[in-house]
C-alpha cells in the first residue's frame, strides 16, 4: 500500500514535470517554474539544515551567490571581475568546489553556536559577502557582472534549463531524504534534538554540523549555478539582505520542517512576485502619488500578508498545513485516536514540532 502510493506519487510528479512545458506557456515555464525550482533547490538547503540539523541558516543565499560570482568571474569575457573567458562547463566544478569549501569554513566557524546566535552569525556572513563583492573590484564591485553565458547546450533553450532544474530538484530531494536515513543523518538528527547527550555518547557534534553545512552549501551552489545560467547577470545587490531574507521566507512559507515545503514556498513566492501586478489596484505600477506607497511596496506587502496568514493558520507552513489537513481527514475517516495528529495550530514549541514531524516522516 505504502509502496504503491509512493510509486504513484513519483510517477505523477515525474509526468507532471515532464509534460509541463507542453501545457504551460513559455513564460510560465521560464519565469515561474524554472525560478520556482531554482529557488526551491536553494531553499531546500535551508530546510535540510533546519529540519535535520536544527540550524537556521541565513548564509545559504550567500553560498548561492558565491557560486554565481565564481561562474561569472570565470566565464565572462568583458566587463568587471576577473574576465577569464573560460568555457562555461569548466566553471561548474570550480564553482561547486568554491561554494562547498566556503560552506565548510563557515560551518566550522559557526558549528559551536546554536539558536539565535547561529542565525545572527550566518546573517553576518551574508552581510560580509555583500560588502566583499561590492568592495573588491577584482571579483565584482557594486556594478556586478552581466553578459555571463550559459553553456551552449542551454543558450536560448529555456526549457533545457527548466529540465535541468527539475532533475536537480528531484535528485536533491531524494538525496536529502536518503541522507537523513544514513547513520550520518540519524546522528545529525540526534545532534539536533540533544547535542549534549550526543556528545556524551561520543559523537562529534561540531563535525556533524560542519559537514551538514558543507552539504547544504553544495546544494545551494548547484542552485546558484543554475540561476546564473538563467539570469546571465549577478551583482552584490543580488545577495544583499533583502534576497537573503526572501530565501528564508520561502522556506518558512513552505514549512521549514518539511523538505517539499521548499519548492511549495518558492512557487507561492514566485507567483506572488509575478502575478500580483496583474491584480487591479495593486498592479498599477507606480500608481499616482497618493497610493504610491502601496504600489511601491506592493510585492513586500503581499508577501508579508501571505506569510502572516500562513503563520496564523499553520505555524509550520503550507506543507505543514497540508499534512495536518490530511492527517485530520484520515483520522476522522479511520476513527483513529489522536496520537497520530500533527501539532495543533497553537503549538509553538519548536522542539515538540521537530519531534513530531521530520523524524516521523523518515
Amino acid at each position, binding site marked *: 500500500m505504502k509502496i504503491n502510493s509512493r510509486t504513484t506519487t513519483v510517477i505523477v*510528479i515525474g509526468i507532471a514535470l515532464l509534460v509541463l512545458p507542453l501545457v504551460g*506557456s513559455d513564460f*510560465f515555464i521560464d519565469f515561474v517554474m524554472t525560478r520556482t525550482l531554482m529557488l526551491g533547490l536553494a531553499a531546500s538547503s535551508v530546510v535540510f539544515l533546519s529540519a535535520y540539523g536544527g540550524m537556521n541558516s541565513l548564509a545559504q543565499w550567500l553560498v548561492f551567490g558565491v557560486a554565481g560570482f565564481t561562474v561569472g568571474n570565470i566565464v565572462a569575457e568583458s566587463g568587471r571581475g576577473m574576465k577569464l573567458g573560460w568555457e562555461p562547463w569548466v566553471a561548474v566544478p570550480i564553482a561547486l568546489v568554491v561554494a562547498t569549501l566556503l560552506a565548510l569554513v563557515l560551518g566550522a566557524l559557526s558549528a559551536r553556536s546554536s539558536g539565535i546566535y547561529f542565525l545572527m552569525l550566518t546573517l553576518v556572513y551574508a552581510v560580509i559577502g555583500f560588502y566583499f563583492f561590492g568592495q573588491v573590484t577584482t571579483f565584482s564591485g557594486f556594478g556586478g557582472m552581466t553578459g555571463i553565458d550559459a553553456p551552449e547546450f542551454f543558450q536560448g533553450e529555456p526549457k533545457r534549463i527548466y529540465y535541468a532544474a527539475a532533475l536537480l530538484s528531484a535528485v536533491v530531494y531524494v538525496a536529502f531524504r536518503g541522507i537523513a536515513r544514513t547513520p550520518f543523518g540519524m546522528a545529525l538528527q540526534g545532534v539536533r534534538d540533544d547535542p549534549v547527550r550526543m556528545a556524551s555518547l561520543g559523537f562529534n557534534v561540531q563535525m556533524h554540523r560542519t559537514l551538514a553545512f558543507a552539504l547544504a552549501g553544495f546544494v545551494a551552489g548547484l542552485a546558484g549555478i543554475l540561476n546564473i545560467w538563467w539570469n546571465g*547577470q549577478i551583482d552584490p545587490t543580488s545577495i544583499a539582505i533583502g534576497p537573503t531574507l526572501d530565501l528564508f521566507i520561502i522556506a518558512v512559507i513552505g514549512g521549514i520542517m518539511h523538505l517539499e515545503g521548499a519548492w511549495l514556498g518558492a512557487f507561492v513566492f514566485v507567483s506572488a512576485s509575478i502575478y500580483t501586478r496583474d491584480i487591479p489596484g495593486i498592479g498599477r*505600477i507606480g500608481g499616482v*502619488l497618493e497610493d504610491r506607497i502601496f504600489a511601491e511596496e506592493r510585492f513586500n506587502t503581499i508577501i508579508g500578508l501571505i506569510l502572516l496568514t500562513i503563520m496564523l493558520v499553520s505555524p509550520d507552513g503550507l506543507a505543514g498545513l497540508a499534512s495536518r489537513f490530511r492527517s485530520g481527514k484520515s483520522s476522522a475517516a479511520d476513527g483513529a485516536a489522536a496520537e497520530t495528529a500533527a501539532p495543533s495550530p497553537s503549538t509553538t514549541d519548536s522542539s515538540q514540532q521537530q519531534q513530531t514531524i521530520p523524524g516521523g516522516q523518515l
Partner: protein
Amino acid sequence: MKSISTKRVLGAAIALTLVAAACGSDDDSGSESTSETTDSGATEDTSAATEDTSDSSEDTSDSSDTATGEGIKLGIMAECEGAFGAFNEDTVAGATLALVEGAGATTNSTDTALDGFSGASVAGVDIELVGIGCGDDTADRAIQEIRTLVEQDGANVVIGPLSGDEGIAIANYALDHPEVTFINGISGAQDATLHVQAPNFFRFNGDGAQWNAGTGLTVHDVAGWDTVAVIADDYGFGWTSAAGFVADFCAAGGEVVTQVFPPLGTTDYSSFVQQLPDPDEVDGYFWVVGGTGTNASLEAFVNAKGDLTGDQHAGNLFFSPALAQALGPDIAGAYVGGFASLPGDISTPEIEAYFASADATWDSLAAGAAGGEVGPASVATGFGFGYGYYAAGTALVQALEAVDGDLSNDQEALRAALSSIELDLPYGPVTLDENRQAIVDTFVAQLVLDEESGEVVSQTISIVPEVDQTFGGTYSSETDPPERDNTPCEEKELPWQGNLIPVVDGVPQR
C-alpha cells in the same frame, strides 16, 4: 503513514502547478498588464498622423511580416523604487510626450503619465503601450523587469532604462534578443554602448563621462586649478563620471592627487572626507556623490575641513542649487558638469515650445524633479531624466516616419534609420556614432548667488560642442571600462579644447 502525507502534499503542489500553468498560457497574448493602457482599439483620434496613415497603406501591405501586423508593442522601462524611484512620473511622461507630439497619442489621464496613452500611430503603425517596468536602479531587478516586458508582455520596442548599471545589463540582454529594439532612457554608464555594442541598443544621450567634458578644462583654465582631489560613488556611473572629469582635467595639464570612493548609500562620510587633502594642500575638489550622499558628504567636509569656498569645488550633475538649502550660500561659486537638458537660464523658442507642449498635455504631474511635489508637467519633462526618455520616444517616432512604418526583417530598416538619424531636439541636435552612442553638446555651469533674490542659482558658463564617447581616443572598445583604479590621466589635445562656446546671460555666443 507520514511518507504518504508527504507525497500527497507534493501531489497537491503539482496539481496547483498545472492549474497555474493553464492560467499562464493565457499570458501569451501579453494583453493583461497595464490593461488600462491597451484599450486603444480604434485610432480615430490620430489627427496629427492622418497624412502618414494615408500614404502608408501600401507600405503595410508589402511588408507582410508578422511584426508589421502587430505594430509596435512598446515597453517603457522606468524606475519606481530605489534612489531614483521618485522619477517614475518624469520618465514615463518624457516618453509619452514624444508620442503625443509625434504620433497623435492621447494620454489617459491629465494628472499622471502612468495611466498610459492610447491612439498612438506613426505611418500607419499603431504604437501600443504594453507595460511599464518598475526598476530600482539595480541590474538584477532591471533584468527581471525587462524580461517581463519582453517575454510576458510581448514588447518589441523598449524605451529605458534610467540608471547606469541597469543600462549595461539591458544592453547585454539586447545581445540575446535581436528581435527587440532597445532605446536607452537616460542611463549613462560607458560600457553599455562602448563595450557591449549590441546592434539593437541605441543611446541618444551622453554617458557620465561625456556630461563632464569641459568641466576639467574650465576649472583648470578659468578657476586656475592645477591639482584636484576626486571623491566619487563606488559604482559604474560614479566611476564613469569621475573618469570623464579626470580625462578632461589631465588633458589640460592638471594633476589628480587623491581619489576616494565611498560605497554607494554611505550615510557617514567623515572617514572618507578625512582621506582628502586639506583646502590649502590642493587647488580643488571634484564630487560625484549622488542622492542623499551629496549633502551628507559636503556637510562632513565642512565639519572636517572648515567652511566651503565655493570656487574650490566642482561636481557632476548631482550639484544643484538645492544644495544651498542645507549648506548655505557658501556653495555659490562651485562648478557643475553637464547633463541631458540645459540649466534653466538658457531659453530658446524650441525649449519654450517643449515646455508648453508638456503643460498642454497634462494639467499637473508629481515630478521627481520637483521633489515629488505636484506641479506643472514641464518641470518633469524639463529635467534630464524626463528629457532623456523624451529623446528616446522622439527617435522612435522620427525613425518610424523615415522608414514609412516598415518593421519587416526584425525591424531592420527601423534600426538602420535609428542609427543614421539626426534628431532635432529642443536642447540641440543629436547624432549617433558607430556604436549607436550619442554625440552630444554638453555644458559647464556654475552655482552663483542671485543678488536680487539672495538665492543660489545655476548659471551656464559654456557649451561644449560635439562631445564623443571616446574623449579623443582616451577610451575605446579595447580599453577597460572606467573603474576605481582606472581613470586614465594624460595630457593631450581634446576635440573640444578651445572650442567651448561661452554663454553670456543665457545666450550662447556661437
